[in-house]
């Protein structure tokens, strides 16, 4: 196949991102809906990437300066996307985050409007003028016993981010984007400029304008934002915010992995499940310094090929186009012993396991999570043996959705993967259900590690409150 490049490929995330460059927003929305429906874009990360890219485009094409209309537009798109595949909760999360961004830009400018004098002063927040309470940001985890060493560098990095921001866009108040984004950004800064020290230790809470009690005020503000603020480029600010969100998606795995050494100790036996990039990077980060043993449950039949691939080559599938999926060394190359076991052996081996690390599909507001099927069984077994269960997840997977009806969140997959479709008699006479996901209740999880650090499950509601506006929770 000399002309391999022109061979028609099955549509997917790559083709979507490619077409997004040339196609206008509306057809792109339909395209993404089709891809979601056909499950050609599936699982959290690709969904999140596609949604952010699409919303960037939607905002970019938005005409006019009316914030209320922009909010409406994003919301409409969001509803369509969520309806297309309600079980990819991440899509809804991203839409809510972007909505939050718009509202934030509006809030900022309203604040600066009422305090015109303050506007040019970068870094000085008009704290008193707004009815905003100082929000307990996720840096509360500094005080949490669960949080270990990250607290210090995180603080020091803030200054560098703030100064950078103010120098760059002096007109703009330092934190236009959502507070996690800036956190993500700052942590990124931590790794890129570790030598830049900072004297001031600004409490993060002051910087985060995640006004939760603003609901009513917000609506009015959205309405008269247009009149009062002619000089503010709403679109550009929101776009910047979305780009920061994209950075967050990109970096969340690294940020999570940075916590690895605190959780994985030498000579431990770690049990994990499914071929998850986040978990894999987490383990690899630990493997650089320490020697430990990994027991990998294979997740047959839904994810076993990817699991094998992950264990052997570091790639999920051999035939995936390499452009989208970054490659890394497998754990075995880093000198880690990896045992792949069938899921049914999990209970038997659990007594010897020191820690269970789970990947997740979605984390819910109550601290429960939806993960690849088999996770519930592993978590239960871990509970039985008092083994700590650590869940690794980017904040973008954290959803404000409360699991009132668990059945709604569970997707049932191809029954043919459980029973071969060739077996005619079986297919005809036996009903087979193949759930793709499991719901793991909060009490089975001991710790969440996100790109913000570690959190107890009972604490997640705070992070939810920090990231999503209450008015956006129902799309």
């Amino acid at each position, binding site marked *: 196949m000399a002309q391999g490049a022109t061979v028609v490929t099955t549509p997917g995330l790559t083709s979507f991102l490619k077409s997004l460059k040339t196609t206008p927003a509306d057809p792109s929305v339909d395209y993404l809906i089709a891809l979601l429906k*056909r499950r050609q874009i599936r699982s959290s990360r690709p969904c999140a990437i596609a949604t952010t890219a699409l919303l960037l485009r939607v905002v970019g094409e938005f005409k006019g300066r009316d914030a209320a209309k922009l909010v409406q537009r994003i919301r409409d798109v969001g509803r369509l996307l969520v309806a297309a595949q309600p079980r990819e909760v991440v899509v809804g999360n991203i839409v809510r985050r972007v909505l939050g961004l718009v509202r934030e830009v509006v809030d900022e400018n309203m604040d600066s409007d009422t305090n015109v004098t303050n506007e040019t002063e970068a870094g000085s927040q008009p704290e008193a003028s707004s009815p905003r309470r100082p929000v307990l940001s996720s840096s509360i985890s500094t005080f949490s016993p669960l949080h270990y060493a990250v607290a210090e560098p995180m603080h020091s990095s803030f200054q560098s981010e703030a100064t950078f921001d103010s120098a760059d866009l002096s007109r703009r108040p330092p934190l236009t984007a959502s507070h996690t984004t800036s956190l993500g950004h700052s942590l990124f800064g931590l790794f890129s400029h570790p030598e830049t020290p900072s004297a001031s230790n600004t409490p993060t809470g002051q910087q985060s304008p995640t006004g939760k009690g603003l609901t009513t005020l917000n609506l009015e503000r959205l309405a008269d934002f247009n009149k009062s603020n002619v000089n503010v480029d709403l679109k550009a600010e929101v776009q910047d915010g979305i780009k920061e969100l994209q950075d967050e998606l990109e970096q969340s795995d690294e940020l999570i992995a940075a916590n690895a050494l605190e959780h994985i100790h030498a000579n431990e036996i770690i049990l994990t499940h499914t071929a998850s990039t986040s978990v894999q990077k987490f383990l690899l980060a630990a493997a650089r310094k320490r020697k430990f043993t990994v027991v990998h449950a294979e997740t047959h039949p839904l994810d076993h090929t990817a699991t094998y691939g992950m264990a052997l080559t570091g790639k999920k599938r051999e035939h995936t186009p390499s452009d989208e999926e970054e490659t890394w060394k497998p754990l075995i190359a880093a000198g880690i012993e990896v045992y792949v076991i069938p899921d049914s052996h999990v209970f038997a081996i659990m007594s010897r396991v020191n820690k269970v690390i789970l990947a997740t599909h979605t984390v819910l507001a109550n601290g429960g999570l939806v993960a690849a099927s088999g996770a519930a069984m592993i978590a239960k077994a871990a509970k039985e043996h008092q083994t700590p269960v650590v869940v690794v997840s980017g904040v973008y997977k954290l959803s404000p959705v409360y699991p009132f009806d668990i059945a709604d969140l569970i997707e049932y997959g191809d029954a*043919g993967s459980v029973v071969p479709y*060739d077996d005619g008699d079986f297919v005809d006479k036996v009903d087979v259900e193949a759930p793709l996901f499991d719901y793991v209740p909060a009490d089975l999880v001991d710790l969440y590690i996100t790109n913000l650090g570690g959190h107890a499950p009972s604490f997640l509601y705070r992070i939810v409150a920090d990231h999503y506006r209450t008015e956006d929770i129902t799309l």
Partner: protein
Amino acid sequence: MPPKGKKNAVAEKPKAGEEERDEPLQAVILTDPFETRFSPFTLEQPRCLLPLVNTPLIEYTFEFLANAGVQEIFVYCGAHREQVEVYISRSKWSSRSSPFSRLEVIQSTARTVGDAMRDLDTRSLLVGDFVLVYGDVVSNLPLESALAAHRERRTKDKNAIMTLVLREAGQNHRTKARGTKPIFVVDPSRDRCLHFEQMPNREGSHFLSLDPDLLSHEEIEIRSDVIDCGIDICTPDVLALWSDNFDFQAPRKDFLHTVLKDYELNGKTIHTYIVEDHYAARVRNLHAYDSVSKDIISRYAYPLCPDTNLLQDQSYQAYRGNIYKEQGVILARSCVIKPKTAIGRATSVGDGTVISRSVIGRHCQIGRDVTIEGAYIWDYASIGDGCTVKQSVIANEATLRKNCTVEAGALISYGVIIGEGKTISGQHRITRAKRKRTDGEELDKGEADVSVVGPGGDGFEFHDSEEEEEEEIVDGLVPPDPNLSLSAQSISTLNSEGDDDSDMAQNLNRPAADSFVSVGSQDSYASQHAANFDHDASASIYDSLEKGHESANIQLELTALRMSTNASDHQVRRSIVLSFVKRIVQLIKSDSSAKSAVDQVFGQHKELLERSIFDKTQAKKVDQVDFMLLLQTELSHRETGDIILLSAATKLVELDIIEEDGITQWWEDAKASDGQEMKAVREKTQQLIDFLNDSSESEDEDDEEEEDSE
């Protein structure tokens, strides 16, 4: 035994788009497979718009093609084109966001797949490789690797013209075709399809005749365990082949079978791509409709499930036990919805009703204490209190009054009303529409037949007058008799080393029903060759005619062929007629008049004809009548057949191959005026008969007069 000395018309055809790999991937959807598998429903709606789990069939096909990354689609319509066109123009596929850059509906008057393919060839729309599917394919298969395999073969060998996508499916599978069983003989090392046979699944037909040449392959597999899902990846050469063989009608039975058989003649190879995972099936008949519906509901076709909501306005949600409900379904508190059921929007279900394993459309009204089991109820149907419906199809707007019973297998078409307390038994197909004889598209509303639908009912029993004589049994929703419908076979992979042994072994321990492979066994050998005679002989004569061989040589070859296969005289005549007519038509196409074409062909090969007719001396001209009948039948479905028949008859009389008595006897034969086509084709020949009747009095002027009568 195809003739040596190959002259290959196909190979000389310019291969358009051969080098242009940048061409978008194209696809052709045949919405109408030109069979009447869904009557009486297809009287009123095109088959591709019939709802499968409340979504029109063609949606699944489009979805499959979009999934495969196809960009240009040509939808080939037969009946009900307007409806298809309207539907497509309103669907998301023709909107701006459609994944297809081109979507065209082509109308044709084609009556077989063959006609459609030849028509496509003349339109020359297809430039590169294309995917040929039917409008009833349901599949979640990514075509990527099949296409890649096809292209790779293609770059190596230009003669690899087609790749068939087949799904492996064990021995007994609900989704496999009943009726006939397609058998593929495959060379697994090169994925080449060597032989194809359709085996009627009837009693006593557990044998398959194979050409012993097949055994020269290192390894062959004889497979009956595949679902032929009708997905073919073709090159434009395929269309050219269809065009060259204008007698091909069915894509498998004719095209595939013959092209494989003629491998030595035209050198084209056809390959298979057998998949072991993913879902692929065709809704080819009601039985398949039933099983594919079940597959979709049980999520074997995932992500093609009801809760994927393929249509934009759908809002299905999945619940435990594969129950799917759209928003706005009204269920009475005491009704029971059992697993594997899908219910559409705004349908209401009354108290005490039990529904299991069924699909119910939108806006249906289902009364109290109704039992529905395994039924397919389409939109706007209403089912009265106390009815029982089992394994049947109830179409849009049909009404069952109170306390009706619909037994398994019954089909109730659009708008039919069944009176109170009536029982409809399994074999009934009730409709309100009648097809006008003159025009297939026009519909009449027929009189209600009270004895069938009960008092106050509307509709009558459907009789398909035009039901084509197909080898395939029209499959009902319910298999007629479970004992008949299944037969387990053994599949054997024959190795060249073990040939004799395995043959022997098979012949010895062949437990009648269990093995259909009988390579080289005595009994099948003869019959196989007799069957092959027709084909081989006509192909060989045609070839010789084309190349202008002498009749003596043709005669020699024919005799040899006849001797070796023990063919009857009738078969010899038939092959002669077939090939002659083919040649004549070809000559006419290349701009010679009917008369000169006939003169040329018949004139040159007088001997050949004489040698096939042996009843000159007898009073009863059986052979001559037979010859004429064959000629007439063959010409009856050709263009300008009537003119050719007239010229041919004249010429034959002129050459004294057919005597006047022969002509007269033929003319009076009952079979010669049997059916409309036969009558139409011989209309023009009336003048010859009239003339012969006259001239029998003045015989001496015969010859000159005859020429004048042209």
